[in-house]
């Protein structure tokens, strides 16, 4: 029931997005392209939070590792883009595993803090070795995905659709159920014979894979890798806001939340400095009054039962 309803919503929405380049200008396409990469960040985060029940305060650690691995390989060794993307995703998984294996012994705020500290350290390292990494200014890349706005748009849309389908499928699968059980009551899940740590680690690696890959794709879209766009705490905060706003434990909601967040930021641009204030206020109101988020409400009123 849920599944069919979800498809009824998603398929027409995707069709509209596919036809969009025919009707809107390059600037809006550029914005949406950015939003789609953010959507992948937020969906990977939701897999970890909504299902595995682990609050990752540092999604930008995984994003940044993926992005900078790809950027360094491309800048210094002139690797072509595809192997850079693979290497970036792989590096994010390795970094994620190194971070998660000890950190998963911790729970709640401790896990969150470790992930937060990881971001701060990565940021410090990147700025400290500014000679190699470009520091605050960033590292320019010789290659870009495409210089055409609609090609870039389709790359991002396809990437978001495929990642979203995989993450959503995973979340709906038996593995997703086990993850959800581990997140909500780890002791009972373990008592039922499921290896909680293994499942959470797997979720973390999946999340890291897509975060890293999306981070690497994003910098090849932007043509430069900088701390402000892929590592900064603010990036991670936006990802978290998008996921919670769209509705936790829905995966798809995270994508909707990201597109909303980027769109709202743009519409409110005339407010200047106040736009961040207004976006945060909207997000706060949603959290206070509709804790299920956009998608949570949509799916709940429809066919949960």
């Amino acid at each position, binding site marked *: 029931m849920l599944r069919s309803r979800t498809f009824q919503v998603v398929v027409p929405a995707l069709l509209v997005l596919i036809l969009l380049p025919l009707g809107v200008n390059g600037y809006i396409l550029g914005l949406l392209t950015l939003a789609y990469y953010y959507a992948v960040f937020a969906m990977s985060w939701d897999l970890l939070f909504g299902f595995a029940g682990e609050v990752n305060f540092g999604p930008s650690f995984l994003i940044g590792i993926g992005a900078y691995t790809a950027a360094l390989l491309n800048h210094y060794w002139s690797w072509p883009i595809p192997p850079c993307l693979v290497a970036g995703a792989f590096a994010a998984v390795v970094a994620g595993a190194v971070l998660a294996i*000890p950190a998963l012994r*911790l729970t709640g*705020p401790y896990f969150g803090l470790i992930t937060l500290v990881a971001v701060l350290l990565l940021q*410090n390292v990147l*700025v400290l070795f500014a000679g190699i990494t470009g520091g605050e200014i960033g590292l320019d890349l010789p290659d870009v995905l495409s210089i055409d706005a609609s090609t870039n748009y389709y790359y991002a849309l396809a990437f978001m659709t495929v990642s979203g389908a995989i993450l959503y499928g995973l979340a709906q699968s038996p593995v997703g159920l086990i993850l959800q059980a581990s997140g909500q009551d780890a002791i009972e899940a373990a008592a039922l014979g499921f290896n909680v740590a293994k499942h959470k680690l797997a979720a973390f690696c999946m999340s890291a894979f897509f975060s890293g890959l999306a981070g690497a794709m994003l910098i090849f879209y932007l043509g430069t890798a900088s701390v402000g766009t892929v590592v900064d705490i603010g990036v991670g905060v936006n990802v978290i806001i998008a996921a919670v706003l769209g509705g936790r434990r829905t995966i798809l909601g995270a994508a909707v939340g990201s597109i909303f967040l980027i769109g709202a930021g743009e519409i409110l641009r005339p407010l200047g*400095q106040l736009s961040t*204030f207004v976006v945060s*206020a909207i997000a*706060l109101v949603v959290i206070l009054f509709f804790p299920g988020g956009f998608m949570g409400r949509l799916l709940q009123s429809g066919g949960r039962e």
Partner: protein
Amino acid sequence: MLALQILIDGFAISSLYALGAIGFTLIFGVSGVLNLSHGAIMVVAAVIAWWVSGTYGVSPYLGALAGLAASLACSFFTYGVIVRPLQKSPSIPHEEKEIFVLTATLLWGIMLQEAVAYLFTNNPKTVRPLVEGVVRIMGVRTPWNEVLTAAVSLGAIALLYLLVNRTRTGKTLLAAAMNPRGLTLLGFELSSIYILVWAIYGLLAGGAGVLLGAFLGVSSDNAGTLTASAFAIVVLGGLGSVSGSLIAAYVVGYLETLTAYLVNPSIRTVPALLLLIIVVYVRPQGLLGRR
């Protein structure tokens, strides 16, 4: 000479850190809330103090009072409008309350930060110090303000210690931290205790903000870093342990001062972060935490 300088500067900074972190840990200990708008509330206090004493030319004491009042107002707002409704909300499952409070206070912190940046710009502001002049401590020229910072911080912490351990009200706070349900069964109104805690918190965070503004200067961009450092100190010391936070504040303060003086000011936070990671892996409950 350098050693003495490090000793004195480190002491003042550490005491300030302790004051900032202790309110944070108190809230967590008593009501289980990690308030991520902490840094922003400190910034509000400092900027209001700067604005009142700078624009109206009144005495810096009045400015400091205004800063305290502002942080008190922010603190009550945080509790009354954000934390409490979320905790009472029936549509959020119990195990997810924590993340909702975290996200909501984070958003609220961003709103405060942006409001300050909009109204007063994000330029660094130095609050007019309460006392002027310099004193020589064993040959090291130290501003009186630095001495005052350490003294006020330690004084406030001592008062808090007396309040918690020596008065009846303080004992109810301790009881609320240990077993809130038991306390309600004994006929205490839990919500009035929480209001008291948030009031103490507002004063502590505001005091720390104003002193920080006078000592090092504050910009709205610092809000995130201030929250992170309070969070780090509190976890290092053990969540909810006041004496642990105190020790951790001095460890972090001196570690940062040593790094800044002896290695490189640009990496002053790195050793403390590394220490934090090691401690959390080896001893997740922190230095003095209870589990």
